């Protein structure tokens, strides 16, 4: 039976490291324009460099793309990018807060920090996606999302440019879906659209 997913998912968090940029851009390009969900992107990148990521993403979509500022409200239909050199956290009043505490898995922003902060707030209204990377960041975060009833998608390690990061997640949690990088954007589009996506028995 077709189930209405349009309002079900309020937040989609996407984490990636080395080798994830292309998939990330593809996912953003395929996001449904009228989705009421908010999107948060945590991508490891060289610290200290001004963010070109926001501009790259903005090129791919009509949705507004923002480099997060402290205490910014989390709005629907908006893509938020975790800024370089800060951890990105979510507060109960649906605002972001930032933190420059020690790196986690050599990373700031850390995927774990954002995912673990989002999981208890959004529970089953959360979708977590973990992509390619050479680092163990994100595994604990994905586990937390799963434990709070969120929907989890892990990039198939074999098809990732660097399979280490998604594999680390799969070692400690059971993902709702393990997908080829190229399938993720299509699947997410369906997941956020009115009809239950093909092959989704959730």
């Amino acid at each position, binding site marked *: 039976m077709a189930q209405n997913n349009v309002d079900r998912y309020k937040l989609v968090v996407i984490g990636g490291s080395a080798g994830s940029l292309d998939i990330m851009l593809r996912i953003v390009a395929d996001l449904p324009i009228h989705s009421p969900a908010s999107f948060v992107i945590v991508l490891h990148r060289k610290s200290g460099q001004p963010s070109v990521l926001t501009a790259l993403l903005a090129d791919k979509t009509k949705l507004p793309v923002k480099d997060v*500022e*402290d205490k910014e409200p989390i709005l629907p239909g908006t893509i938020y990018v975790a800024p370089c050199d800060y951890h990105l*956290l979510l*507060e109960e009043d649906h605002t972001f807060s930032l*933190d420059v505490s020690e790196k986690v898995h050599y990373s700031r922003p850390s995927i774990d920090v954002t995912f673990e902060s989002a999981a208890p707030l959004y529970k089953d209204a959360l979708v977590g996606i973990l992509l390619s990377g050479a680092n163990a960041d994100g595994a604990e975060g994905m586990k937390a999302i799963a434990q709070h009833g969120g929907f989890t998608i892990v990039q198939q390690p074999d098809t990732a440019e660097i399979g280490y990061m998604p594999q680390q997640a799969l070692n400690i949690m059971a993902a709702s879906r393990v997908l080829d990088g190229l399938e993720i954007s299509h699947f997410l589009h369906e997941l956020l659209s009115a009809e239950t996506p093909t092959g989704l028995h959730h």
Partner: protein
Amino acid sequence: MIRDEDLNLLIEELFSLYGYDFSNYAKASLRRRVNRLMVVDRFPSFAELLHRVKRDPDYLTRVVEEFTVNVTEMFRDPGLFRTIRETVLPVLATRPFIRIWHAGCATGEEVYSMAILLEEANLLHKSLLYATDLNPSVIENIKRGIFPMSQMKLYSENYILSGGKQDFSSYYTAKYDWAKFDERLKTKMIVATHNLVSDRSFNEFGLIFCRNVLIYFDKHLQDRVLTLFDSSLEKLGFLVLGARENIRFSGIAGKFRQLDNKEKIWRKIM
């Protein structure tokens, strides 16, 4: 992750026993700090952490240290320092006396950066740099002026990007793993503990730095502290915040104007 009621209990105890008020700190970040403390100091349960906090006043230093994050670097955000060099200092130079407040300065890298800028602009002799932090242990470091040698490559790069023309290594003496900064840089520094949550303004300043401190506060406390800065700034004084901070949503927004180049520097216009 620690439960909300436990976090609140700890906050209450820290206030009633020691007068440190963390109740308006941003919760998501504070929760992580407590979790980290429990892992690093190996508390098997929250009850044992709470017990230690109540019974061992010496442990408080450690808690405050862990709760207040002390990550900083010299000439962090070099573009900002370039703007201070090129736009802010020429304005301050016209005044007979320059008072600068580094609020929440942690281990003082920013204060030394500023002293270097002032010296290069030939203004250090008529300046005073007030360096304050909540955490008594980190500010000891400012008085020593000793920083890890391993950071000097980064600081030197930052310094050059900020418009520095000297050889950065001329400002310190290297000894093993440490760099000791020139004594003359600290002759104009006044170092003290100051709690932005509970302490008042103590002077009028031409320039106030408070970078990556407000992010640890909730909106209510941010607003209070920004009001404190407003009342501590001279007319046409400058307020400098962290790279992802903004006064946009605060009560003082209307009294300040951000510099045109969009660096996080606001000028008090009324």
